[in-house]
């Protein structure tokens, strides 16, 4: 199909230069090629690629579909940072004289030019069992209603378009390719946090895999790259909080996290020296003796006795009790500006019945009226 990007009457054009990493997985040929095109001043990176393919070099390979930031097809790197090509306007870049380098996303095998093999990505998404498990077999006659407040918990996760931008720069996945990664774990949270799903405990046990929740290194590249504001790292933190709420705390990562809580409510400051045995267990900690002695010589292993106690630490203890009483445990405690979602709360005035029974996971809704 020919893409006509001729400027509309009255609009202006700009000169855009970019370099593209061309690659062919079959031959292994790799080349950084420079392209210069004239384009309307409103073009996106995707528009520029279309112009190159139509008018300069038909062999260029890239994925696209919707052109409007919802299909998630055109994830690629610009100067090493994953972007959606259709969301990236070129005007400022071209005017600054910068010639950006375009390449395929990271952490996925490159097939040709800007096209990556998404299969490892989909495998991890499927691993999350990304469908609702309501806890009953037959589709009910009548639906359960879910309040806006309950959906707010997974509002961000539900925005994911599975483009792979978050995965592209995931530092943990670079080191451990089996790490489930930010997209899959955010998808997992989308179901764990869904009030209609009753498989949350089974899911959490599964996501507490060696390559799961606690393999995240908190580099925050995923939050930085996501073009839709999903904030996958926050979703992973929610999964951690939900796991601990459900008592799924066998992973060293969970034990590590819990020791900070214990420290804060006992001495106020981190009890550093006890962190290793509390995380890894005594046996593993003993294996680290030689390493620990090296650190001890340099004052890096502060003696646990006498403990470093914060003044008025009783306030910190009492805060803990108070917070637990208020019951905002697990993912509910992670604040992401949900109050802003209050304005879309359904109301009687908006013509929506609010008398319908609220969802109870695992329980079939009552039969339809009439």
């Amino acid at each position, binding site marked *: 199909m020919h893409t006509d990007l001729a400027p509309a009457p009255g609009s202006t054009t700009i000169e855009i230069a970019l370099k593209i990493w061309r690659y062919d997985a079959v031959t292994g040929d790799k080349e950084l090629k420079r392209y210069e095109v004239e384009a309307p001043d409103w073009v996106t990176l995707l528009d520029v690629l279309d112009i190159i393919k139509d008018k300069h070099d038909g062999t260029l390979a890239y994925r696209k579909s919707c052109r409007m930031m919802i299909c998630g097809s055109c994830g690629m790197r610009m100067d090493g940072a994953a972007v959606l090509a259709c969301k990236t306007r070129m005007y400022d870049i071209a005017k600054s004289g910068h010639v950006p380098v375009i390449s395929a996303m990271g952490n996925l095998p490159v097939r040709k030019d800007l096209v990556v093999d998404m299969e490892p990505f989909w495998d991890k998404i499927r691993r999350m069992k990304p469908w609702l498990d309501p806890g009953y077999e037959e589709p009910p006659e009548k639906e359960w209603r879910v309040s806006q407040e309950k959906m707010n918990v997974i509002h961000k996760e539900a925005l994911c378009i599975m483009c792979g931008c978050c995965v592209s720069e995931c530092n943990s996945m670079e080191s451990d390719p089996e790490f489930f990664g930010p997209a899959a774990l955010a998808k997992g949270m989308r179901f764990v946090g869904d009030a209609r799903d009753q498989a949350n405990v089974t899911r959490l046990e599964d996501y507490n895999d060696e390559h799961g929740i606690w393999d995240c*290194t908190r580099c925050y590249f995923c939050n930085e790259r996501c073009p839709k504001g999903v904030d996958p790292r926050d979703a992973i933190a929610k999964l951690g909080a939900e796991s601990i709420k459900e008592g799924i705390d066998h992973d060293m990562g969970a034990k590590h996290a819990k020791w900070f809580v214990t420290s804060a409510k006992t001495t106020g400051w981190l009890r550093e020296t006890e962190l290793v045995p509390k995380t890894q267990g005594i046996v593993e900690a003993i294996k680290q003796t030689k390493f620990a002695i090296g650190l001890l010589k340099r004052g890096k292993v502060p003696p646990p006795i006498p403990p470093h106690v914060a003044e008025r630490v009783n*306030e910190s203890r009492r805060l803990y009790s108070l917070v637990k009483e208020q019951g905002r445990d697990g993912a509910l405690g992670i604040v992401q500006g949900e109050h802003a979602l209050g304005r879309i709360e359904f109301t009687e005035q908006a013509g929506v019945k609010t008398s319908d029974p609220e969802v109870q996971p695992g329980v079939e809704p009552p039969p339809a009226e009439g």
Partner: protein
Amino acid sequence: MKRVAYYKGCLASLSAKELDSSTQALAPKVGLDLVELETVTCCGAGDIHEAEPDYYLHLNARILAYAEAAGCDELLTVCNVCTLNLRQANWQLKNDDGLRERVSNNLERVGVPPYSGNVEVRHLLWEIAEGEGYELLKQSAHKGLKGLKIAPFYGCQILRPSKLLGFEDPDRPWSLERIIEACGGTAIDYPAKVKCCGFPIIQAREETALGELIQPIEQAKEAGADAIVTPCPLCHLSLDAWQSKLKAATGKDFAMPILHLSQLVGVAAGLEESELKFKRHVVPVTPVLEKLEV
């Protein structure tokens, strides 16, 4: 002098005392009057945020409340992780009146002053990379780094998520380079300077963490760096203390000295060893000091 509440965090209080002593010695030279908070606790280091998020929020609100009660409108941090945890909590509290009211009420119930949301959290790096702090830094760094090649290592949580940090472009930061040059050093460029050191999972997933840790050290070495400088004591700990484990795992002995930001500027500003405390490092800093004839 700018009066700021000083939050040193866990590491500078204990295993990285050299960060605290060098920061305290450097502060007056860059125009900072540090008001040390006596009653504060750990920020939770991202771990309490993940284990008990509502408690994390309250602990950080308590720190902010005591900074406010000390009459300070700025809380100075010297750690990336403290910076993100405090700024994240502060963002939540400032932007949600209902939430701030609930948390403030809870603080008052246990005897903590309420928090009205008027404190800014800023890292030492930002204080000396621009404005008056930078002008004073240029004056006090008179002893100079004599062209020493320094690899800046930012770490993650002073750059990302930029929505909460926002001091500089997270992909093209400039602050450390500017400070290195102002101190008479030469800033080395390398791709991993904005990546993760692996510290948050170094105990629970050591192998994954070491795969991250090796990148900045190896790249800095290849680029000819004499030392790496970092604004984060957690990055410092993994880069410095875990180098021996990299050696055991890969057979490569990088012997790369790692400096805290306050030590790098401190050396250039002529601080004493009693303040810099280089003897507390696991990888010897001696080759750097010899080049500088300190």
